[in-house]
């Protein structure tokens, strides 16, 4: 059965970049959210195995999504994909329960490594 994956980013290009960098042999169905608010709405209605999450977004940013997810346990695996790579930000998202932090633009090998590490692949 394919794994449901949600990709949340306000940039169309970034969403496509993440989707394209998913391992070819990974059996997934992907859905998109264009900001944090939309992601939360979708996550509250449907069950997803993995969330790829951008940080700097309108409406509700990635930190906001992580805070809601921490309280409501909407999705188990959150992988932050961000252009904001400052040490303090990486620490903050880890504290809020994100599994991993990937620097934009996404590196396919790095992504595979992380997925394998957590037994997702």
């Amino acid at each position, binding site marked *: 059965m394919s794994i449901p994956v949600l990709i949340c980013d306000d*940039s*169309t*290009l*970034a969403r*496509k*970049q993440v989707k*394209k960098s998913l391992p070819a042999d990974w059996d997934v169905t992907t859905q998109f959210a264009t900001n944090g608010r939309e992601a939360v709405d979708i996550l509250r209605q449907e069950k997803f195995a993995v969330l790829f999450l951008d940080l*700097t977004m*309108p409406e509700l940013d990635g930190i906001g999504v992580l805070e809601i997810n921490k309280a409501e346990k909407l999705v188990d695996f959150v992988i932050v994909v*961000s*252009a*904001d*790579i*400052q*040490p*303090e*930000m990486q620490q903050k998202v880890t504290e809020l329960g994100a599994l991993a932090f990937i620097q*934009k*633009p996404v590196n396919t090998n790095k992504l595979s490594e992380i997925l394998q590490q957590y037994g997702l692949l």
Partner: protein
Amino acid sequence: MNEIALSEEQRDCLQELINVAMGRASDKLARYLDTFVHLQVPHIDLIASESLPSSFAESYADDGVSLVSQGFYGEDGILGEALLIYRSNDAQGIAEILGYEPDDVSEVEQLTDISSILTTTFLNGLAEQIENQLAYSAPRVVSALETALESHLHQLSFNWDLALKVDISYQVTDYSFNCDMILLIPGEAIQNIQKVLDRILNEF
């Protein structure tokens, strides 16, 4: 004025490239100063050369500003100017941030230090993503004197009618120090960057 406009896809693509480049610049600055830089969504616009000085005046009317201006040029006709703008109050705070003693180094040197970190990291990040090699001209510091600033802006806008203008803001929260980066990609270089954006868009 030429009929140039960015498509929605091109704008989205450029914004994402800028996001990544400014993320890297902020990270470098954050590590250098051991602080946190607050990122905001960059603003992309087309600007006519004659409105450049007035748009500056509008944004920085009440504050004396200093700026560091650096040209860049690469392959495929990609070129432009990166401006880093400091409000004078903030410029004075830079010495403190960098841990300099008073009179250690001139304000000009301090501005050049911060600017080289931000501008070089930003432009390298941009160049890498568009698979280009950029060369840089020597940075020029333009003082807070109004006349110097105005003549610099006139000089900058001398060769073009229309430029792509990207506004980026760096806010260092701990030190309440802000500076703005303005990227100007003028004239034909706009079409050249549009070709690059289309190439990237075609890959995805």
